[in-house]
Structures are given as structure tokens and as C-alpha cells.
């Protein structure tokens, strides 16, 4: 009787309180610091709701539990989000400069480097794969892969991925500066005078769907939705559908994905030493991805006799369009007349395709 009058106060634990503080910290990062606010704000609120004592919101029959089962456990929400990402992505820079595709491939090395280190640190291979995918710097891909390989760790992995994606302007510039010379950073790349043709823009997504699904069948859902979204945008006869995917659909998916991912971060799952390990390995994966991207950019700089600015290699980690903006900003720091944004968007969107294929390969081998 007395307990009922006290409400949920008797059920407050140190774990709950700590998690609520972490939730407020995530909300603060999203709202005040603008670190990926569209994801970190709903994730933070999901963490807060899931850790309120004695509410049962995040239990299997609670509303967050029902949402989780309906949209996260079956990987539906990340795929819907990827549909919206595809509708928002312009692959024209890639079609105009196909060589930059290779930079998107090189930057995927961070995934596999983190996987190897995670194995050395004692994680099993499934968990190592889920941690390594943080290096893809792609939210929906990370959630899609980790939901299948390590569903218990999806919360910290997603938060680590989105936090580091938001911190790309802090993580990448020192690495880029360290690995390139001033002469290399000053390279000006000419812009192609012609736009990509309509037919090329239509055939490109269809070919990518077929090719990626043949090479890595497990990547088919990710690549299929990404490219379907892009086709809606490019085909030009379904404007209403394209508009819906670019706005309402991705927004609804983002709200529910954030809430459900946050709801997995309960005290008993999150407050463990392995969470620190996940965050450290995530940072390592991001850094290695940047290093390999820039190094491959240097290879292309020498191969083309100085025609390619190696900085654009850093945009090979997905993090669209943040990584490309960082590259552009760094180029302009060296010389205000240097315009790298469109050149960097090539490897940037290639990184999205590359990370989806890498994730598909990991799933194909491990499952």
C-alpha cells in the first residue's frame, strides 16, 4: 500500500540514475552541440524512457518493446531509412568521375582493421564484426549489421557510430594534415563541364543492385533499398514518391529507429566495461578508415601525376555529407580558391555503397 503511494521512487537504482544521466548527456549532445541531432535526440529520449523505473515501457509488451520487435529486430527500420538516404543522395559526382569509386573502397579497411583488433581483445567473431562495422560511418548499415550479429550491443554500437559521425570534423583533419604535404593539399581539380546523362543516372542504380547482390547477396536489402530510393529521385516521373521518401518516410523511420535503439540501452546492458571497448574501437575504426582513404588518395595523386587531391580520400568513409564538407573546408583552408566539395562527394557516396557491400560480405561469411 505504502509502496503504491510512493510511485516509482522505491525502484530507483544507481544503474537507472546513471542511465538517465547518460540519456540527458546524449540529448545535450544532440540539442546543444548539434551532434547528429536527428538521431541522437530520439536515441537519448529512448534511453531515458527505457530506464525510467517500474514503467515497463521497454519490456517486450511495452510500447517501445512492441516498436522494437516490429521495426528493429527484423531490420525493417534501418532499411526504410536507407530508402530515404538513397532518395537524398546524388550519385552524379561519382558518374562524372568514376575513378573516385576506388577511394570509397579503400576507406572500408577501417571496418576490417577494427574487427581484427576486436578479436585480439577477446570478443567473439560475431561481436567483432558488429563493432568493426562502426568504421563504415553509416548509421543504417551499422544498425542493420549489428542487429543481426550482436543484438544486445546494438545500443552502444549505434550511439558510438552516430557520435563519431558527428565528430568527423574533429577526428579527420589532424589525420589528413599529418598524412599529406602542403603541395598535395593545394592540388586543384577541374570540374567536369557536362552533367551526367539521364540514362546513365537511371542505369547506374539498377546495375549496382544487380552487381552488389551477385557479389554479396546479404547486401541486397541495403543496396536494393538505397538504389530504389535513388531511382525514385532520378527517374523523374514519381515526384510524389520521391518527395515522400526524402521527407515523411525517412523522418518517421528516424523517429522510431532512434527511440527503439535508445530503448535497448538499459543499465544492465550498457553499464559494462565492454561499452568503453566498443567506443574505443569505433574511434579506431574511424581513424583507420580515414588513414587508408587518404593513403589511397596519395597513391592516386602519384598515379595521375598530381591531378587528384589526396584529401578527397578521407571522404571515402561514408558520413555523407559531413566527410566531404570537411575535405572541402580543409582544401579552402590551404587556398580559398580550392573547391573540392563535388570531387569529395564521389568517394563519399561510393563509401556508402562500399560499406553496404562490406556489411553484406561480413553477414554472408558469419551467418
Amino acid at each position, binding site marked *: 500500500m505504502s509502496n503504491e503511494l510512493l510511485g516509482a521512487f522505491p525502484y530507483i537504482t544507481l544503474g537507472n540514475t546513471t542511465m538517465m544521466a547518460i540519456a540527458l548527456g546524449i540529448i545535450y549532445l544532440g540539442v546543444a552541440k548539434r551532434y547528429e541531432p536527428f538521431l541522437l535526440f530520439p536515441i537519448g529520449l529512448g534511453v531515458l524512457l527505457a530506464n525510467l523505473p517500474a514503467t515497463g515501457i521497454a519490456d517486450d509488451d511495452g510500447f517501445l518493446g512492441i516498436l522494437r520487435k516490429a521495426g528493429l529486430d527484423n531490420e525493417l527500420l534501418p532499411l526504410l531509412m536507407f530508402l530515404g538516404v538513397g532518395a537524398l543522395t546524388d550519385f552524379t559526382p561519382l558518374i562524372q568521375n568514376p575513378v573516385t569509386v576506388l577511394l570509397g573502397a579503400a576507406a572500408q579497411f577501417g571496418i576490417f582493421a577494427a574487427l581484427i583488433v576486436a578479436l*585480439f581483445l577477446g570478443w567473439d567473431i560475431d561481436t567483432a564484426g558488429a563493432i568493426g562495422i562502426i568504421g563504415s560511418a553509416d548509421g543504417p548499415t551499422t544498425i542493420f549489421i549489428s542487429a543481426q550479429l550482436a543484438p544486445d550491443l546494438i545500443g552502444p554500437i549505434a550511439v558510438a557510430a552516430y557520435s563519431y559521425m558527428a565528430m568527423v570534423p574533429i577526428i579527420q583533419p589532424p589525420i589528413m594534415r599529418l598524412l599529406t604535404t602542403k603541395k598535395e593539399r593545394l592540388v586543384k581539380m577541374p570540374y567536369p563541364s*557536362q552533367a551526367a546523362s539521364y540514362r546513365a543516372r537511371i542505369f547506374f542504380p539498377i546495375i549496382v543492385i544487380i552487381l552488389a547482390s551477385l557479389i554479396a547477396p546479404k547486401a541486397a536489402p541495403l543496396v536494393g533499398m538505397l538504389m530504389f530510393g535513388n531511382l525514385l529521385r532520378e527517374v523523374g516521373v514519381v515526384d510524389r514518391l520521391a518527395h515522400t521518401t526524402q521527407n515523411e518516410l525517412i523522418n518517421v523511420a528516424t523517429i522510431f529507429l532512434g527511440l527503439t535503439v535508445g530503448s535497448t540501452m538499459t543499465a544492465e546492458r550498457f553499464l559494462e566495461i565492454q561499452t568503453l571497448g566498443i567506443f574505443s574501437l569505433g574511434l579506431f575504426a574511424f581513424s583507420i578508415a580515414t588513414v587508408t582513404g587518404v593513403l589511397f588518395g596519395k597513391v592516386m595523386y602519384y598515379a595521375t601525376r598530381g591531378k587528384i587531391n589526396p584529401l578527397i580520400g578521407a571522404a571515402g568513409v561514408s558520413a555523407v555529407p559531413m566527410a566531404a564538407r570537411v575535405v572541402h573546408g580543409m582544401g579552402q583552408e590551404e587556398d580559398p580558391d580550392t573547391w573540392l566539395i563535388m570531387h569529395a562527394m564521389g568517394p563519399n557516396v561510393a563509401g556508402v555503397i562500399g560499406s553496404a557491400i562490406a556489411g553484406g560480405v561480413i553477414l554472408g561469411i558469419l551467418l
Partner: protein
Amino acid sequence: MPEDFGNGLYLALAGMGLVFLSLVLLMLILFALRKLFPSEEVKEIIEANDNPMTATITDENPVAAAINEAEVEPTIAEYVHVESQVQEAALSGPNDGRIHRAKVAAIAVALYLDMEQERDVAHPPVVPSAWPPTQDYSGWSILGRASIWGSQGRRPQAYNQRSQSAYPPRSRMRE
């Protein structure tokens, strides 16, 4: 050495290999797509080179050259020149059921210049009167005029909505 290390190494090598393989294939496909479907601008240039009917601004195409000049700085002499070229173009008539692009452009420019000239004749440009006028007005008349303009279209304030001040306006003005 962890027991999964061998599997992990295989996964890393196979993964990077397949990622590179698929993206290299994609790059080759993109090059092929660019060859097969050149952009619209390139296509247009190719067509223009193939088709003698398409407009190109050269000395051999005086109409287009005249339009180009006229667009930059239309003077009376150039206007007359364009007009004559347009008449020539109109006389020559459509060729194979199609009108030359340069002729269409020339007609459009000529129509625009004609309309502009007619408009200037019909409605001579109005020179805006200077304000404030040079003629002397008293301050009261300006205030009165302003109050009339300000009150136009407004309903008078209801009596109970008027601000009731304890002080008459004259005393406020003194403050």
C-alpha cells in the same frame, strides 16, 4: 592468439577483396555508361556538328552572328541589321518543314525590339517628380496631409478602446 583469428583474417581479406572487386567493376561500368550515354550537352554538340540546320554562331551564319551582337548591345544600326536579316530569314521560309533555330531566335529578338520601341512611343517614360517638392509648404499643411493619408481606410477607434490619459495632450507635449 585468439581461436577466431584465422577466421577473422580470412573475413578481412575476403571482405576487402570483394569490396574492391565490386567497386572496380562498378568503376568500369561507370566508364562504359559514360561512353554509351554521353551527357545531354555533349550529345547536343555532336548533333550540332552533324546537322547543318542547327544554329552555330560563325561568319557563315550571319543571322546568328547578328543576334549575338544585338543581344550584347542593341543599337539602332544593329536593330536595323537584325531586322533585315529577319526579313531574309522569313523570305527564305521553312526548310523541310522545320524552321531554322537561328531564324526563330532572330524573330524573337526582332519582336522584342519592336515591342519595346512601340511601348516607348505610346507611353513616354515618366520622370518621377522630386520629393520633397521645391515649392515651400508650411509645416501644418504637411502634418495635415499626413494625418489625412494616415486615417484613410481606418475605422475610428471605439470610445471605450481609446486611451484615457489623465493629462491633456498639450501638457504631454510640454514634457
